[in-house]
């Protein structure tokens, strides 16, 4: 009906841009506190594994300002915050599961009083040796979920018959989210056991459910509201619930508003991270670099509970092909239990790890053949006749990735630079350059089918202003803005009339997390459905008035019109209300065509794929391991962009975050299972000077072939994996030290890891 787009596809600023820069955008900790608000601090387990003998909290109770000290015994409902299995308590009971696990909760009059009191505890734990590493867990044989595998063909003979073969073990580090706003919740008790929780969460519904479970009240009594998050990246998908539930527990116990904001060091210690993995790989190939068979075992360090590890590790497996056809393949996985905080969602949700393992194998093939890795990449891409993934889904639009790579190879001058770099390296003893161009193919949809649904509630008021509610949450990704643009164009009105509101479970219930990059695909569609329902009612009304066909009514330029008849949107709204027409509607959307059957390991788990490629150049000091990324060119596919500025921001930000994961971000645990890099002083995410001046991002033109909102594609996660090009470029630089050798570089490529790898393959003096 509306064919004029005033907002969609335009590079409009984020809805809160002016508030962000003025300091007036309110996050949970900024909300005015109800009178008498109490503050919380958590008592942390002093051991990673063992029996909890005594909490040792007498001194805590006696400390100044303390109103209450709550333990597992004070939980009126079920002591269980797990998103899937019932395997994670809110507060520890008889056993502790990881270092820093919450074991009690201090409620005090001020934040400082609560924190000071919490440190007075002297808990007693009968310690046991913890499983810290993947090897520890393998040795103990402990897992959080059963092993899982899928594949095609008979791998052992295919590997044996392949003309050439390479094998290895590759460690892939985890990653701390480092959302700038730490975990926080404010719980306000209401009458009859009602509880309102302001939570910094990607999943208000989950917070609502868990709070209801902990308090033992019906879900209808609990409301979770989220206006915005100061970043989330998956870290607030399942793991914002614990803090919200603790705040609610305290509010329930004291009948006063209660706030819990984690200190950064605590936040980093006691919230889950990206899963670190060990990939055990074996590849058979031929002298053309074509892959014959792959055997890949992904050993994932899941931590103490299942959390989201089923989906995360499945997605690692789904992306272990990246963009390549693997004729015979066996992809296996272990979800290892370690005595550490449960690892969780993080942008890419396992995909990056699977993809990185694949790219290591491609590099190994190229190195052993003396070929340019890009040629090996291109030779193995999905293509007609070779288009079935290891899980049985067809890749029908592989031409997109072929086109992206071909274009980028040209625009980034890959071949010329390859030659220049070879010449530079030949005469440079200490400094070596490296170059890599790597593709990304990322599947869009939750692989748990039930999550692929969304709801919206759109209200049009008598003055023609519109209030927009949907189940998606805003964490900086610009979802609210994109959906407001969609709604404005549906109604043909100016976006200033669309009021964006906080996400709340009271208005749109039973929602999925804002995750899997699917926020706009799902909630945008739901909002459009709601708009179209209201438009249909308005059109029907105007059609009767003007005695025309409702299909002829056009919504554009702040008005309804048909031929030379015209009525402002505002007047239409006012008169429709007088005619007793409802201008409020819900909208609902469920992604079509998904057929994934996990037990068979076959089906269509994804609605479509998003593609991209990046070409990165690095320079490495082989005497120190220090390095710089000197140039990045990206070509990425977002379908028809709903907002190019927001999409570019996602691509740039995702890339840099991925670069951090693969270079400077190192999680160091000690043998007690305690994270030692639990602060920005020791855990180093990229800063401005880590980003190269030449950092060019282009959007690949083209529409999504599936019927998504305005044929756009999801953009939240895929760009993170473009940073694999940086890791591959570092490997390429190292490879120049000893051509033909397998570069023994694990991720993250810290200066130390790089120097170690360099010395391993080229032990002599450099000059």
């Amino acid at each position, binding site marked *: 009906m509306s064919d004029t787009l005033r907002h969609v596809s335009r590079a409009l600023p*984020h809805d809160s*841009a*002016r*508030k*962000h*820069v*003025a*300091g*007036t955008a309110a996050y949970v*900790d*900024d909300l005015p506190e109800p009178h008498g608000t109490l503050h919380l601090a958590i008592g942390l387990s002093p051991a990673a594994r063992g029996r909890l003998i005594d909490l040792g909290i007498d001194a805590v109770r006696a400390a100044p300002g303390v109103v209450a000290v709550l333990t597992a015994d004070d939980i009126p409902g079920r002591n269980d915050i797990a998103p899937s299995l019932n395997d994670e308590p809110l507060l520890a009971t008889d056993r502790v599961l990881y270092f820093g696990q919450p074991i009690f909760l201090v409620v005090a009059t001020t934040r*400082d009083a609560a924190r*000071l009191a919490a440190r007075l505890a002297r808990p007693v734990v009968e310690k046991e040796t913890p499983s810290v590493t993947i090897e520890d867990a393998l040795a103990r044989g402990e897992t959080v979920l059963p092993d899982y595998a899928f594949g095609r063909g008979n791998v052992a003979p295919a590997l044996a018959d392949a003309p050439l073969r390479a094998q290895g073990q590759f460690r892939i580090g985890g990653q701390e989210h480092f*959302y*700038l*706003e*730490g975990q926080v919740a404010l719980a306000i008790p209401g009458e009859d056991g009602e509880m309102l929780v302001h939570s910094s969460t990607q999943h208000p519904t989950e917070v609502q459910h868990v709070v209801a479970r902990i308090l033992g009240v019906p879900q209808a009594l609990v409301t979770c509201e989220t206006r*915005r*998050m*100061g*970043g*989330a990246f998956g870290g607030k998908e399942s793991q914002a619930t614990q803090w919200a539930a603790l705040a609610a527990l305290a509010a329930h116990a004291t009948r006063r508003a209660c706030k819990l904001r984690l200190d*950064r*060091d605590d936040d980093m210690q006691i919230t889950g991270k990206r899963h670190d993995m060990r990939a055990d790989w074996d590849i058979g190939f031929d002298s053309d670099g074509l892959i014959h068979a792959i055997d890949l075992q992904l050993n994932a360090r899941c931590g103490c509970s299942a959390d989201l590890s089923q989906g995360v590790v499945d997605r690692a497996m789904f992306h272990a092909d990246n963009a390549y056809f693997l004729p015979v393949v066996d992809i296996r996985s272990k979800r290892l239990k370690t005595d550490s905080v449960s690892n969780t969602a993080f942008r890419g949700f396992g995909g990056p790890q699977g993809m990185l393992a694949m790219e290591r194998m491609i590099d190994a093939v190229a190195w052993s053949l003396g070929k340019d890795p890009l040629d090996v990449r291109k030779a193995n891409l999905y293509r007609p006749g070779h288009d079935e993934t290891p899980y049985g889904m067809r890749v029908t639009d592989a031409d997109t990735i072929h086109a992206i790579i071909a274009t980028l190879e040209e625009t980034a001058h890959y071949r010329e630079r390859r030659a220049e770099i070879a010449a530079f390296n030949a005469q440079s003893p*200490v*400094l070596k350059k490296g170059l890599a161009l790597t593709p990304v193919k990322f599947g869009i949809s939750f692989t748990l089918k039930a999550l692929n649904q969304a709801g919206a509630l759109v209200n049009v008021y008598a003055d023609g202003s519109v209030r927009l509610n949907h189940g998606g949450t805003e964490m*900086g990704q610009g979802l609210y803005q994109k959906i407001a643009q969609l709604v404005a164009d549906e109604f043909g009105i100016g976006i200033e009339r669309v009021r964006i509101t906080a996400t709340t479970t009271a208005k749109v219930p039973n929602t999925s997390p804002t995750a899997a990059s699917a926020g706009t695909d799902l909630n945008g569609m739901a909002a459009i459905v709601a708009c179209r329902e209201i438009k249909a009612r308005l059109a029907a009304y105007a059609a009767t008035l003007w005695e025309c066909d409702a299909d002829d009514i056009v919504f554009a330029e702040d008005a309804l019109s048909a031929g030379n008849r015209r009525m402002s949107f505002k007047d239409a709204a006012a008169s429709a209300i007088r005619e007793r027409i409802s201008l409020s509607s819900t909208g609902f959307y469920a992604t079509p065509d998904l057929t994934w059957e996990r037990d068979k390991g076959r089906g269509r788990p994804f609605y479509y794929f998003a593609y991209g490629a990046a070409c990165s150049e690095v*320079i490495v*000091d082989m*005497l*120190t391991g*220090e390095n*710089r990324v000197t140039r990045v060119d990206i070509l990425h596919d977002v379908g028809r962009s709903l907002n190019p500025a927001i999409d570019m*921001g996602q691509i*740039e*930000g995702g890339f*840099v*975050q991925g670069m951090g994961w693969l270079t*400077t971000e190192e999680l*160091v645990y000690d043998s007690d299972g305690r994270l030692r*890099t639990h*602060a*920005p*002083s*020791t855990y*180093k995410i*990229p*800063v*401005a*000077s*880590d*980003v190269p001046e030449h*950092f060019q991002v282009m959007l690949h033109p083209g529409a999504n072939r599936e019927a998504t909102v305005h044929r756009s594609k999801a953009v939240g996660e895929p760009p993170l994996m473009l940073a694999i090009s940086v890791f591959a470029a570092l490997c390429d630089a190292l490879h120049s030290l000893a051509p033909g050798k397998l570069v023994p570089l694990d991720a993250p490529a810290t*200066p*130390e890891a790089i*120097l*170690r790898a360099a*010395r391993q393959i080229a032990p002599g*003096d450099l*000059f």
Partner: protein
Amino acid sequence: MPRRELRFLRRGRVISLSGFAPTTTVLDWLRLDERSTGTKEGCAEGDCGACTIVVARLRDGQLVHEPINACIALLASLDGAELITVEDLADGDTLHPVQEAMVKHHGAQCGFCTPGIVMSLFALHHAHEGEIDRARVETALAGNLCRCTGYKPIIAAALEGCARPADDVFARSASTRMAALAELDDGRSLFVGDEDRFFAAPATVDGLAELVLRYPDAQLVAGATDVGLWMTKGLRRFDRMISVQRVTELTHLETDDEEIRIGAAVSLAAAASVLGDLDDDLATMLARFGSQQIRAAGTVGGNIGNGSPIGDLAPCLIALGAILELRRGDRIRTLPLEDFFLAYRKQDREPGEFITRIIVPRPGPQDLIRVTKISKRRDEDISAMLMALRLTVDEGRIATARLAFGGMAGIPCRAPAAEDVLKGHVLADAALWRRAAAALAEDLQPLSDLRASADYRMQVAQNAVIKALAEMAGIPSHITRIVPRREVHHV
């Protein structure tokens, strides 16, 4: 008589406070007392920059705007200054030029880092440096983490928003603000609280000496970039705090042909301008020391007084042959800086004694200097290893060698065995470089920790020595390092 209340300028008014705890931070005062929530807490340890505020002061008659980490800055450190926060920048509905540029370039996604970034850019906007290039912007932003944007739009906003000389309400009201600040500057000592719980900031070195002697258990503090973390992370609550920052004599920075005398309370930023002139490597190291926020608050005396084995200044100053001056009561003594560090976290400093200044002999024309700082991330990171080397070379032969390290032992220390290998030998002998590097195994026993393994530390220390000697012998630095050394411009 000391003044009994803290006074600072805020939104055109003088705020006077007396009933605060000595350990109150600026951030807590803003968010919890004033209830200005625009300034964010991202880490409470000076590393993320979300809490960046700008403190305007009169320095040598000039109005300067310094970005500071409010999370670890003591409220009382605002005495005599003007506190500017993100809420103050817009002029009614009109955004400040740096805010406007941030909106235009889509420099905020989640927006949580944004107030801090805006304040860092506001400080840069007021730095009056004329031409602004990307490198300058990167330095200005090294103390601001953003997890969402990848920085590209922020850098673009900075280049646009800070391109012209400051033209905003603050620039236009500069004379009024300067007059108000001058009014606050009464040159008096500050003593807020009572015998049991106080914050004191004496105005003279005699006053300081007396107070420190009277209260030897009081926590001495300068920029609080170390002490602040003991409060926010260690939850230490000091009842008595004595600040050195208002002591006039300790803020002096004097140079002549012979030496450079740096008062203990001189900020790292101010010291950088002088030390950086001695040698390009020193300038580079100081530009990588913490962040702009940290260098504006942190002091030379604090870096040395803290006695950390990974402090960056000590090895550099030891290599330069610096002398430390200490005072206790009326007694003043000096000692070579390396002798100050006795053992891990133990220094040659008596109760009641404090550092007054550091005296650095000016390097001569035959002196060659090299400094290497190794860290996981190039900017705003603590050293895994720092090497500083000064050679005096006479007709190709090494006359004297001072080689010092940080991060390689429990204290900043010299490497005597390696120095011995070098002394008296021809510099341009590659075999000598390797012998000196090998001798480090005798001198140093590094540890493994979260920043680096002992093995890596030793390896990069040795390689740093080889590189430094090679460069001194004439191998051009574009062969030996990613970012080549600029030409040496000291006299």
